[in-house]
């Protein structure tokens, strides 16, 4: 810790103007820091980073918004961004304390597992590797996830007698995760929790802090207060702020904020957004965004719950036999109309089939927006009927609208006789939607026709039933893949396909809080192995309530979690089994190429 701190301080020093009050201590500290940097290779490399002056460089290079993985910022960099303002002698150690284990390679290898090692404990460990992670009896002490469901509850109404503003603010502050969008002129646009009247002053403070650094041409990227990480993303005239007590890394928070930005672009398109603020910087963006609050909120909640899709920046597909998927693709292609740009069949938020023009591929972040609209928010599914939705897919083209035809396929086989009679069924598993995207706003009836033909054909050939059955069967269970391995859960991402698969959450991680703990481990593993300049390929970490393994190769990323007593050898064995399974089943788990026209 001490070393870290000194190294961090030494790093922050260059951008600061000389301060009389601290100048006396400069020399000895510099000497110390040099010794430190010689020991820690990470720091040296950070210092020799190519662009800009060391203290102020923004995100290096042109980051593709698409790829959350390439920006795994390591802890030291974050400290540098955040701590520069108060880098004087008064800065406490906690100002620099990371909200998670340090993301550097060496550090994280050492961080886990050190505390509890006695021979007796080791003995016990070898005998009971089937203890599940996060078993309540083990933790004993209450933790912040014990009441995780309350995180998603709305604040009590203003009019309610029983809660004063003080109490409502207290509830607001107790939320583990906040997202806010503020315009550069200081107008609040959206906040996940709390009505804007209640939290206006807090938003004002945040806006002032951000503007202060903007004014100094030294944009603020984030800061840490206690266990809470504040991360700021500036996009044009918009400030996006994530406030998290969940321990995500900066790059993970950045990805989440970028998704919110994408949602706004998807509603307005970039030229419109720019135009609004170019004409009147003080414009109230709430009006043009009216009606999309629920989309932003469901995205935010999804991130707060922990979304592997967001973490891995990739999509999940429905597991189907290769021949079955082939049949579906061909049916889809055969009935394609000329107006079609992209066609998707989606079941329960998992991709079943894609058809696309040869020149264009679909971007995961765009698909995430569509899936969020269809399966997380109620707006589309709740209304029944067929939908015709103008939307911009920012990663495809952020300058214009496409038109999306959405129809959920009826449970009762072919609905050719009574179209429009669809029941607004709540999220029953096995819900299948057809999504047809066109660049022409008048093409609704052609796409409707295509949907009818495809749905009829799928029903006739039995493919629809197969899709439904596969969706109902759910995700594969680890016991089925690697029996006896005692691995509780895994994530497997195929890098080439930008898709992932994961084990079933049903048995062990059905509760929101258990699931969040699992996702927190994944977030930490992911942050560690994707930290800038981290060269590690395999990371095994042990903690009091679970063990975890991350394994990164150019072909795949693999993460798994098991009970606390799992030995490293057993873990590796189980991991190998799962990876072999994933390779063998690759063509079933993932859509390779899709239907191309």
């Amino acid at each position, binding site marked *: 810790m001490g070393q870290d701190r000194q190294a961090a301080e030494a790093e922050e020093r260059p951008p600061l103007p000389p301060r009389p009050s601290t100048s006396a201590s400069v020399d000895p500290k510099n000497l110390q820091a040099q010794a430190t940097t010689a020991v820690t290779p990470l720091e040296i490399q950070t210092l020799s980073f190519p662009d800009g002056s060391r203290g102020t460089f923004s995100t290096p290079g042109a980051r593709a918004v698409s790829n959350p993985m390439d920006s795994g910022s390591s802890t030291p960099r974050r400290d540098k961004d955040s701590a520069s303002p108060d880098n004087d002698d008064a800065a406490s150690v906690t100002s620099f304390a990371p909200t998670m284990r340090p993301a550097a390679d060496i550090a994280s290898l050492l961080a886990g597992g050190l505390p509890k090692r006695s021979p007796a404990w080791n003995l016990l460990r070898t005998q009971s590797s089937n203890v599940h992670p996060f078993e309540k009896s083990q933790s004993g002490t209450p933790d912040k996830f014990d009441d995780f469901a309350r995180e998603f509850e709305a604040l009590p109404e203003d009019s309610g007698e029983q809660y004063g503003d003080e109490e409502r603010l207290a509830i607001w502050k107790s939320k583990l995760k906040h997202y806010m969008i503020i315009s550069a002129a200081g107008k609040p646009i959206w906040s996940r929790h709390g009505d804007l009247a209640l939290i206006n002053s807090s938003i004002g403070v945040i806006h002032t802090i951000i503007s202060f650094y903007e004014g100094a041409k030294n944009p603020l990227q984030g800061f840490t207060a206690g266990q809470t990480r504040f991360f700021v993303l500036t996009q044009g005239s918009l400030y996006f702020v994530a406030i998290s007590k969940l321990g995500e890394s900066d790059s993970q928070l950045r990805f989440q904020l970028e998704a919110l930005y994408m949602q706004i672009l998807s509603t307005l398109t970039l030229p419109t957004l720019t135009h609004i603020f170019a004409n009147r910087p003080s414009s109230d963006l709430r009006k*043009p965004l009216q009606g999309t609050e*629920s989309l932003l909120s469901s995205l935010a909640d999804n991130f707060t719950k922990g979304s592997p899709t967001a973490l891995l920046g990739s999509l999940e597909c429905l597991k189907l036999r290769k021949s079955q998927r082939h049949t579906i693709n061909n049916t889809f292609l055969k009935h394609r109309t000329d107006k079609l740009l992209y066609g998707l069949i989606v079941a329960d938020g998992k991709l079943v089939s894609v058809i696309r023009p040869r020149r264009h591929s679909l971007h995961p972040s765009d698909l995430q927006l569509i899936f969020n609209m269809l399966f997380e928010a109620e707006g589309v599914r709740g209304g029944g009927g067929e939908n*015709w939705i*103008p939307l911009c897919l920012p990663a495809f083209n952020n300058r214009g609208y496409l038109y999306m035809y959405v129809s959920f396929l009826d449970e009762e086989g072919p609905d050719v006789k009574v179209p429009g009679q669809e029941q607004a069924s709540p999220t029953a598993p096995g819900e299948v939607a057809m999504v047809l995207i066109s660049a022409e706003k008048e093409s609704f009836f052609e796409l409707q026709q295509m949907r009818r033909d495809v749905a009829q054909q799928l029903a006739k050939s039995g493919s629809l039933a197969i899709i439904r059955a596969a969706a109902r069967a759910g995700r594969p269970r680890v016991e089925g893949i690697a029996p006896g391995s005692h691995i509780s859960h895994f994530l497997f991402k195929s890098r080439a396909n930008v898709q992932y698969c994961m084990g079933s959450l049903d048995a062990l991680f059905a509760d929101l809080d258990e699931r969040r703990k699992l996702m927190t481990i994944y977030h930490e593993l992911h942050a560690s192995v994707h930290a800038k300049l981290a060269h590690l390929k395999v990371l095994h970490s042990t903690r009091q309530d679970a063990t975890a393994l991350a394994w990164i190769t150019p072909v795949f990323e693999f993460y798994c979690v098991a009970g606390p007593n799992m030995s490293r050898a057993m873990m590796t064995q189980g991991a190998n089994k799962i990876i072999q399974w994933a390779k063998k089943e690759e063509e079933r788990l993932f859509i390779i190429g899709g239907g191309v026209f």
Partner: protein
Amino acid sequence: MSESAPKPSSSVKLVLLGEAAVGKSSLVLRFVNNDFQENKEPTIGAAFLTQKCNLPSRTIKFEIWDTAGQERFASLAPMYYRNAQAALVVYDLTKPTSLVKAKHWVAELQRQASPGIVIALVGNKLDLTSDSKTADSDEEGADGEDDSGDARKVSTEEAKAYAEEESLLFFETSAKTGHNVSEVFTAIANAIPETSLKSARGAGASNTAAGRASEEQRVNLGNARESGSKDNCAC
């Protein structure tokens, strides 16, 4: 096919317009599924639904475009009302500005939509007012500054006078209780002139045949509509 009834049947294209959150989708949901959702999420873009309406003399199949009320979707509205034979312009009885918006829509329809379009002006959320028969007002604590339980801000007389002036059908409804909802659609169905039904189908070359076929076999409907819309597009 089940459609063995001797009654002639024809389809009517109907569009719903009005400010955001006045209850357009709720009216449609009540009419189509006889259902109501509290706190329904806003419609995005537009939804297309169909529902049959049985009249003594014939069956009308409504093809309903339920549009989103937000301002940013306004530019898409012409696409939905262009060939519509009927329009439901909805306002919120508890929100005077929504009536202003409704008047704008009526004016736009009279200017731009096909002549002879049947327009109904509908004041929704009657359950929030004291003259509602069924709903008990103290359940709706959320909306009222009025402790009397009457959140009505637009008087029946005012809206009715305007409707008569512009010769619109006029109803006050509650999608929540279902009050007057089916009456609106029945009234529209009755108000559509026989000739309009024929001419609507006559837009395509094979008028009657296409119309029948569309009843029995949905497959042809899209084509018929399609050619119709193209005709109008050209002029």
